[in-house]
């Protein structure tokens, strides 16, 4: 095994612009042995490093069966700005994978509903792609609800036609954009729940998005009868080490980096209620 506290090198194979501030980077691990030893599950993240600038926790947006290791990154801080300046063929440092993934076993025999907001779709794309590759036709279609600020902020826009082959997809935006024709809804992502017919008692929810979305969506789901134990949320916190030794990501007694980022709602409910925990 390689040492997860020391970055290894990966080369950028290609870059795909997703929106004005977001792009997907496909990485190839340089070292053959690490390449072979490296494995992750959907929902996990890596620490990406630009030497001299620093590291940032970025969720993996590809699925394990994909050829490339992908990260979908929005320019926000120093590190992501530095990554934005890189080109195909440049290298980055990688540590990982870290954290808990989406509990796929929970979906067996149940109906999956994925709720994403903004860049929150990145770690969910990993599971979406996995399902695309494995979904047995005929059974009930999993649901995908996705909300963004404007139509221009829809990430993976070109992949949605393929998602629709397997998923029941509903999109919404906060506000329209005069330059783009928009066929989806307008309003918060929870409003999309009215568009779907689902059996709440048999539903499992995977959710990732801004915390404000989580705060709105979870009570809405619970009110409709989805059991809190069947709602899984991916949380975001400041991360530095990835393995529970730096303390930055603490959320109540949980370390988001090693106990999360994916949590069962009922395991963190008591802390989600407390501001600034």
């Amino acid at each position: 095994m390689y040492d997860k506290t020391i970055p290894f090198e990966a080369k950028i194979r290609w870059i795909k612009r997703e929106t004005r501030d977001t792009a997907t980077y496909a990485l190839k691990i340089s070292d053959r042995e690490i390449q072979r030893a490296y494995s992750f599950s959907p929902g996990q993240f890596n620490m990406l490093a630009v030497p001299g600038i620093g590291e940032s926790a970025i969720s993996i947006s590809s699925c394990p069966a994909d050829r490339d290791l992908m990260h979908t990154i929005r320019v926000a801080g120093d590190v992501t700005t530095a990554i934005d300046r890189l080109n195909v063929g440049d290298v980055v440092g990688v540590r990982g994978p870290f954290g808990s993934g989406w509990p796929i076993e929970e979906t067996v025999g149940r109906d999956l509903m994925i709720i994403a907001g903004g860049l929150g779709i990145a770690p969910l794309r990993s599971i979406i792609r996995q399902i695309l590759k494995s979904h047995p036709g005929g059974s009930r279609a999993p649901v995908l609800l996705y909300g963004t600020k404007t139509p221009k902020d829809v990430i993976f826009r070109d992949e949605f036609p393929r998602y629709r082959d397997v998923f029941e997809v509903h999109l919404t935006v906060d506000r329209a954009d005069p330059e783009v024709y928009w066929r989806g809804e307008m309003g918060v992502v929870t409003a999309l729940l009215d568009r779907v017919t689902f059996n709440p008692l048999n539903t499992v929810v995977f959710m990732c998005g801004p915390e404000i979305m989580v705060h709105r969506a979870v009570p809405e789901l619970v009110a409709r009868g989805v059991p809190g134990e069947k709602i899984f949320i991916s949380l975001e916190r400041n991360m530095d080490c990835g393995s529970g030794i730096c303390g930055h990501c603490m959320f109540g007694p949980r370390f988001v980096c090693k106990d999360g980022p994916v949590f069962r709602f009922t395991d963190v409910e008591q802390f989600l209620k407390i501001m600034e925990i």
Partner: protein
Amino acid sequence: MESLKEKKIKKIKKIKKDDLKILFDKLRESYTVIGPKLSQGVVVLSEAGFEDLPAGFRDYQARGTYRLTDEKAVDVFSFSNGPDSFKRFLHPPLNEIFSFRKSKKGIAIEPAAKEGRPIAFVGIRACDTWALKLYDRIFLEGPARDPSYSALRKDSLVIAVNCPHPGDNCFCSSMGTGPEVTPEVTDVADIVLSELEKSFIVEASTPAGSDILEGIAGEEATDRDLEEKRSRIESCKKAMKKSVPYGELPELIYRNLEHPRWKDTAKRDLECGNCTQVCPTCFCNSSYDLIRLSGFSQKGAELKGVRIRKWDSCFSRNFARVHGGNFRPSRRARYRQWMAHKLAYTKEQFALPGCVGCGRCITWCPAGIDITEELEALKGVR
């Protein structure tokens, strides 16, 4: 651990007080010996010999106060903990993790070598052995074993000491973490010293500890000696002035995360982070890349630097900052995070107490905030 027990390493001896020097000398043959020493009117930890021990010194500690007194005691370990703990050495305040070189060809990373002789800590108190046990769990048993800590900790030796009397701010007795080094922590305390009136009882609890004891002449400890040890520990417990309602933890914290007291504490809190620096269980840190000016080179656009891990504190304003926001913008939330981590979260995270009752945070808080009083206040009406 099984083989440990089979070997029956438990060795117990009685040595003369001055023979502690032999122990020091023996340790110096193969270890860097870190022990208590006076520096600028404070008992600190540094490389030290027997002569450096502030034997007989007493200190006066209160909220935000530390003074050496003129009082002279007969005991060698008469003084209490100063601000330092083992953490300065095993989790250095500024610690190079690796060096990197980036060129056109790629990134080359070299983990920082932690060479040098292993450390022997002399005079660690019961409270700090609990903190050390916690550190081992955090840095060695997490999802990624920390190479730096593990190199510094490897082969290190701990000579712990049962306290003859408590410091003025100590409250270990109520936390169950002192003043005696109990069997729960003898796996991290290789040797335990108990000071008697005229001698020391020396007990080895690990093979490494017993190897050291091997070469030191001593007498057998009699039942009377053991009785004296007992009664000294009891009187230390009795002399302890502070306590916390340990039995009510962690619920006392969990029930009161929105207690008005936090706001009140925040008004007094200076956010200097002193408490987190002196606390032997506080481990939070931040890493950054350091590039010296000489790290830039024109040829091949090479860049050289090091990744540094430095102590950080949940009191730092940016500790919980992410792009686009801060999860703990208020001082109230940051103080609450600290105390809740100490008294509630750690137990859940690592199955060990997050506060070991050493009282350092009380002594070194310039605002005189006392964790035992703050906890007591949470019991009040809300």
